[in-house]
């Protein structure tokens, strides 16, 4: 190629490149053209459509240091036939494009959950924007009201909710359920769903103020809401499902109204399933848990190995009751949250094919045996009761 032709080729290539750049590009969004959505709430509107509320950060520029997650927020809502449609309609109320990719929590009203979650979750999952780790909650009443509750400590609701969920590590009263968990749970059908609940409660000191509380779990059958687990049942679930990281147990003293409190530091559960000859399922759950003594309100009890053993048997009974009550509740609502069916499938693949259509009925009638082995490890920094020195002469 001659020098001239070579130079012309280079010029042509340069022109092409520049034209690409100058004509502008699509698909880019500058940050000052965006609103960042932190939480979303889904409700049922009056005419049966979906009502979507978005919590958006109100950014305040300027100042030496950015405010980070302490910014104020505002809310936008719209209704539509599906979540996607409602989300797009919200754009007509917003002066900027909404960035849904940073949504940290999703609140769903129990009414919507009762109608069936699957199509909504599928709609969200189809979009690329929502994170897999978005936390999902169910709330009684209208989710958009829950979203708008004024929070005393943090301004952004999603951060509050996330913090509340992380509290489940200590209390075992709530658990972390993400979007991908729900989606894969609904499709895989290995077990039924539980979704943590968020309630609006009155703040005990400040009177008119309201607080968000994460307590309890909602039970699902397929993708329909069926029941709600109380505190006790929630703890039972967390134990049986091997999800518990830390919790507390209270046991009454022998005779009387005083009680002892233990801190639960460890929990391991093993679920054994078997099919007997008549193809009836039986489950045995072994739970081993470690606890520490935290407060003893009963008087005059010296702490000896015998006492420990007595307490342990008391704990076994009390924890066992918790777990059994929880299981019976799920059986009543025909909700297989522990995945017993799937375990049977894995262990007895051939028989499972036969009993699968009747599984929910079989689950309701299934025999469950719960064995607790609790162990009290230590009593923190105090071992002896101060009363044991009472009455010693000469002191």
């Amino acid at each position, binding site marked *: 190629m001659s020098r001239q032709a070579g130079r012309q080729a280079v010029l042509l290539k340069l022109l092409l490149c520049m034209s690409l750049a100058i004509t502008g590009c699509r698909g880019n969004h500058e940050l000052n053209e965006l609103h960042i959505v932190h939480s979303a709430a889904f409700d049922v509107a009056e005419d049966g459509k979906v009502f979507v509320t978005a919590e958006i*950060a109100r950014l305040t*520029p300027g100042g030496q240091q*950015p*405010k980070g997650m302490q910014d104020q927020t505002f809310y936008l809502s719209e209704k539509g036939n599906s979540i996607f449609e409602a989300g797009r309609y919200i754009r007509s109320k917003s002066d900027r494009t909404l960035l849904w990719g940073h949504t940290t929590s999703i609140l769903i009203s129990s009414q919507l959950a009762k109608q069936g979650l699957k199509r909504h979750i599928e709609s969200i999952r189809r979009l690329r924007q929502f994170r897999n780790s978005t936390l999902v909650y169910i709330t009684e009443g209208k989710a958009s009201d829950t979203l708008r509750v004024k929070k005393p400590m943090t301004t952004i609701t999603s951060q509050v909710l996330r913090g509340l969920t992380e509290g489940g590590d200590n209390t075992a009263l709530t658990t972390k359920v993400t979007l991908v968990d729900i989606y894969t749970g609904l499709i895989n059908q290995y077990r039924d769903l539980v979704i943590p609940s968020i309630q609006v409660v009155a703040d005990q000191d400040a009177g008119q103020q309201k607080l968000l509380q994460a307590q309890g779990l909602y039970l699902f059958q397929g993708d329909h809401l069926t029941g709600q687990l109380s505190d006790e049942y929630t703890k039972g679930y967390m134990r049986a499902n091997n999800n518990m990281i830390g919790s507390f147990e209270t046991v009454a003293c022998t005779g009387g109204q005083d009680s002892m409190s233990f801190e639960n530091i460890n929990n391991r559960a093993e679920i054994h399933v078997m099919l007997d000859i008549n193809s009836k399922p039986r489950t045995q759950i072994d739970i081993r848990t470690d606890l520490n003594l935290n407060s003893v309100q009963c008087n005059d009890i010296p702490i000896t190995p015998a006492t420990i053993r007595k307490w342990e048997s008391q704990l076994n009974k009390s924890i066992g009751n918790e777990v059994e009550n929880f299981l019976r509740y799920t059986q009543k609502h025909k909700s297989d949250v522990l995945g017993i069916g799937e375990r049977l499938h894995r262990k007895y693949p051939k028989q499972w094919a036969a009993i699968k259509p009747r599984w929910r009925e079989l689950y309701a009638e299934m025999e469950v045996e719960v064995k607790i082995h609790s162990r009290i490890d230590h009593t923190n920094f105090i071992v002896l009761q101060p009363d044991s020195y009472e009455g010693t002469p000469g002191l």
Partner: protein
Amino acid sequence: MSNHTPISHNSEHNKALLQEMLQHAGDLIISEIHPHKQGAATVCYLDGLSDPMKLEQMLLLLQNEEGMLAPFRQSQPIDTLEEAADLIAGGYAVLLYAHSGSGLAIHTLGLQLRSVDEPTSESVLKGPRSGFTESLQNNIALLRYHFSSPHLKVEFRKLGTLSRTNIAILSVAGLTNPKLVKELHKRIDEIQADSILGSNTIEEWITDNPYTLFPLTETTERPDRVIGALRDGRMAVVVQGTPFAILLPFTFLQAFQVSEDYYWSYYVSSSIRLLRLMCGLLGMFLPAFYVATVTFHHELLPTPLLQSIAAAKEPVPFPAVVESFAMMIAFEIMREAGVRMPRQVGQAVSIVGALILGQAAVQAGIVSPIMVIVAALTGICTFTLPPTDVNYVIRILQFAMTLLASMLGYVGIMAGFIMLITYMSSLRSFGIPYLSPAAPFSFANLTDVIIRRPHPYDNKLPSLFRPLVKWRFRRQR
């Protein structure tokens, strides 16, 4: 101009011809002396170029015994007046014997040049601090001092039809591949430049591909770097009049090596080398990465960081691309200004630069603070690399990558990266692929480029440059 005027027997005639050939130069001194035994000799030299002490010594010897001049160092017989003119211009003192029609040229070069000093462009913490000067003789001497081996082969050539610059080609006999040396000589033969101003002139003539952005040869001011190159089987070209010697062949990954790596312990050197490689990558891709993330892929950032960046970018009217170009150009301006400006003004200007870029621009809402951080970090990253041309290439490519990132996001950056590697893989420096030892892959060589092997284990020569010898030494363990 290739006449061959023989030295005539008429000394006046010689004198007139020489005056004419040297354009009646004002500093040309031609005088007759009459040593004892022989006939008259005409001494010709250029005033400033010749060292008066050496001249005196030479004349003394002449007065006493002419024969003793012959083995005098760096004397060569001359036959034609053109040669004589050439040598006089080169700093020799020429003796013309009219009666025998022959001449003798004696090296008396001694002008005031810089003393050996620490090289300003490449400084080290721990290592020799001698650097090349403008005198070719000194430089060769310095090299021989550091590498006192009889195997060091030094070949002198004169280049440039007008400037007649001396150059020296260095290689190690028995180590350097003779094909490479032959190729180098061939390419130097093809140089038709009229004057050689610096080593870059020669570089551009002998390089494989003069139109490419990437340097295919390397220059250095340090003798220990030259020695390091020679012992690996490379060649060096030292040019008179410039302290920068040319090292070839050159592969891309050598731009990340400094001589200091061999003077610290191998843990330290390896970590710092890895750091340098990372800085090279960062220097090229960080602004592009930032622009792509903030424009296309907002989900990648953690939410608190995104909030902060969004809040900071609120008042800024320009898109991230324009911001980033502005900051990178501003940084380049500062850097170039820093090189050119006189020392006295330096302090004031740097304060102004920091103020303008750091505080005022951010507060005026022209750029966002995080862009300042990104641009500054990128700039600093490129300073960790030794000052070869690759440094500047990385800076130029920053802009291209940022542009691509603004068009297609990460896919654009990747496309740019792939085209870059493809282009670099197709380059060769004296027959050695430009990206070796990364591609074609050679594990043994790559470990010495990315990390450094301890000296007792460094017993193999890198096969990159096809040396004649494979082992430095045989391990006794």
